């Protein structure tokens, strides 16, 4: 049977919310044994995003947000703040390859688990810390929500409508960028360890990952002392290039015509309406200069059609056109479903529903072996008894002291439920 690339790698995963777990999900999909560590007092906040009625049993195991991003991982409950919890954690470190965390930059220090301390326990340990602004620097302890970082990193300043309305990305954009990068960083450290036998500390700043995503804008400042403006959906030199309203409520399609040849095909696909022979649209430069009129004409054509109709008509003519997909469009999309990207998967308590597969495909390991996200403390026995060899008596004591548990102490008012 085909091996996955990270089989045999054990990850002690302290990450929570989205950025870190997004990265460790990739590691789990690629075969690593990812042991997600929460505690009764310090559970993953995402477990509270439930949106089911408040009468639901074990709601913390039924958060779709949690269950999507934590699939494939084992889940244990261990309180690292208590001395006995720390002792158990040290035992886990001894048999782990990687420790990864995205706490605020001073937390691991306060817990006594800096890289130096972990290195004492396991000399070749790989530790990755991913607080929003990095582990060092005067701003390392500042609030680090994704949108804040996106602003700090320069992206928000060049996101917005041409009339001056500045926007941020509609998701907490820094999170998946940092998470995807973190998974790559872990692999790099594994490469290095393979070559040298040494582990290391990786300091990953979401903010820095984000600024790297607009490198040419930074170069434009460096080269020309020019700051980018707000260009909306327009392009520096392509036209038509924009987002056009379609038939239906809040339905849109994007179109990008890349050269003269495509412009000819585009006009033909529209049935060569009179307006396309206007001299103002005759060449690429004049099309760009007369975009407002161009967009108006195109909008009058798209408004009569659904986004999918426009996409198929134009793609058949060799033009880049893409539906602005909403969640339902994506879940029902013909292409994604045929590729098997969405699958019906079962979680022992939450049920069966459509969840995405791995983020990329491996030809030699094509079968996705689904494993659900862990219920809270679900794999306590596996970790404490099987892996760490704790006795029944030791485990019972830890349970009594609430150092390990099976139920997170979530105050009722913090659960995001829906009683309508």
């Amino acid at each position, binding site marked *: 049977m085909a091996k996955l690339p990270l089989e045999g790698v054990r990850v002690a995963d302290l990450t929570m919310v989205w950025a870190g777990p997004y990265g460790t999900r990739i590691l789990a999909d690629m075969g690593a044994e990812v042991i997600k560590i929460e505690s009764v007092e310090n559970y993953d906040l995402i477990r509270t995003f439930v949106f089911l009625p408040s009468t639901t049993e074990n709601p913390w195991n039924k958060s779709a947000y949690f269950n999507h991003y934590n699939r494939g991982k084992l889940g244990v409950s261990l309180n690292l703040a208590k001395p006995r919890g720390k002792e158990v954690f040290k035992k886990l470190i001894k048999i782990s390859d990687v420790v990864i965390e995205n706490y605020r930059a001073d937390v691991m220090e306060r817990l006594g688990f800096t890289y130096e301390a972990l290195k004492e326990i396991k000399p070749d340990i790989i530790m990755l810390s991913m607080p929003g602004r990095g582990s060092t*620097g005067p701003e390392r302890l500042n609030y680090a929500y994704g949108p804040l970082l996106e602003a*700090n990193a320069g992206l928000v300043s060049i996101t917005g409508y041409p009339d001056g309305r*500045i926007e941020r990305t509609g998701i907490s954009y820094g999170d998946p960028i940092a998470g995807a990068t973190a998974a790559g960083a872990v692999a790099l450290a594994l490469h290095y360890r393979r070559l040298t036998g040494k582990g290391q*500390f990786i300091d990953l700043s979401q903010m820095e990952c984000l600024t790297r995503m*607009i*490198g040419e804008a930074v170069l434009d400042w460096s080269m020309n002392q020019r700051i980018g403006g707000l260009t909306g959906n327009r392009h520096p030199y392509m036209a038509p290039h924009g987002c056009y309203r379609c038939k239906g409520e809040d339905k849109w399609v994007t179109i990008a015509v890349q050269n003269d040849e495509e412009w000819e095909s585009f006009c033909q696909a529209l049935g060569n309406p009179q307006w396309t022979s206007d001299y103002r649209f005759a060449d690429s430069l004049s099309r760009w200069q007369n975009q407002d009129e161009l967009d108006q004409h195109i909008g009058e054509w798209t408004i009569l059609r659904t986004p999918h109709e426009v996409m198929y008509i134009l793609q058949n003519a060799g033009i880049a056109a893409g539906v602005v997909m909403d969640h339902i469009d994506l*879940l029902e999309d013909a292409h994604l479903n*045929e590729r098997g990207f969405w699958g019906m998967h079962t979680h022992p308590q939450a049920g069966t529903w459509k969840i995405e597969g791995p983020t990329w495909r491996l030809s*030699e390991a094509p079968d996705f072996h689904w494993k659900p996200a862990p219920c809270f403390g679900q794999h306590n026995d596996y970790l404490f008894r099987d892996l760490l060899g704790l006795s029944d008596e030791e485990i019972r004591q830890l349970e009594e002291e609430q150092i390990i548990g099976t139920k997170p102490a979530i105050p009722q008012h913090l659960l995001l439920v829906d009683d309508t």
Partner: protein
Amino acid sequence: MIEGALSDLKVLDLGHCISGPYCACLLAGYGAEVIKVEPPGEGDPARRMGPFLRDEPHPERSGLYLYLNTRKKSVTLNLGTTAGANIFKQLVKDTDVLVENFPPRVMPGLGLSYAALKEINPRLVMVSITTFGQTGPYRDFKSTNLTSFAMGGQMMITGEPDREPLKNAGDQAEYQAGLYGFTAAAIASYGAKITGQGQHVDVSAMECMSSSLEGSLPTTSYIGGDKHNRHRMGSQLTAIMGVYPCRDGHVIVHANPREWPKVAESIDRPELTEDERFSTFLVRHEHNDELVATIMGWTTEHDKMEIYDRAARMRTPWAPVLNTRELFDSPQYKARGFFVEITHPETGPLMYPGAPFKMSEAPWQAERAPLLGEHNEEIYCDRLGYTREELAQLRSQGVI
């Protein structure tokens, strides 16, 4: 001494424009030897794309190309010729990772499919980065960054709810594809080093982006569409999660409902938490415009770094909207030495973003991008054994 984490990794970069090259440049920065294979004549189309130094178009002075191709070697090669394809196959023999972002039909059309290359080198990890993947009904669809961003789902929820959805900064769909390509390459090549087993890795930008729609797509899938179809947030759909003008630019606040008291405190109006218009999540929603006006009344009286420093002291969730110039004044970026200076014969010294993460044992290596075909002799003569006369012939034949 081992220089970088990937110091024994050999990469062939067939990437063009953004996604493939970005993947390969991250591998290069962490020590891999990356040989960039460019078409003879014009090279990577990115060389034709701005921003240009002093706005003078020049193939060695494109800021986009210079940024995306740091620390790579450049050879020119026409894969469409028999000789070119054969030279390529010779290079593949000794390659760990091949990065390409052509439409799916191209490599097989050149006789260079994974199946063919696997015969030459079973350890090869071929990372194919596209918008839609190697298979499926959209496989041959054309795309640009805009249409790819739209298809991935992040565009529908970006922008104001009452107008068109918005593309975000620059070319994020392309950069995301490249980033995921990097992670896939790093992981798959690790597996290949351990087991000797290569892979064809199929990276689809649409799937990467569809996987990263935060909590809303998962909840929609689980609970149902009607209940949870998310709208564009816009600048002020929620007063405590918005971009606000301030005296010298813009700032952003981002607080979840439980943190509303912090926001009230941060604008010196703690009593607003008792105000019947703002005391609960529901009434704040009803009186959103008023709260926006109240907050804006405060922000417009203060400067962005003042607001940010205050927020750091008071521990409230504000951040400045910095432009590219201001990034260089950022105390955090200065302290971390994030920007690095790289000198290039055609541009002199310029400042570049540095490492995406800091590895304590194997730091990022910032070196300049190559000139077109700069390493033809090194690779073809020194490494593959062609003579300089043969090189000249290949050049005249349009092979290199």
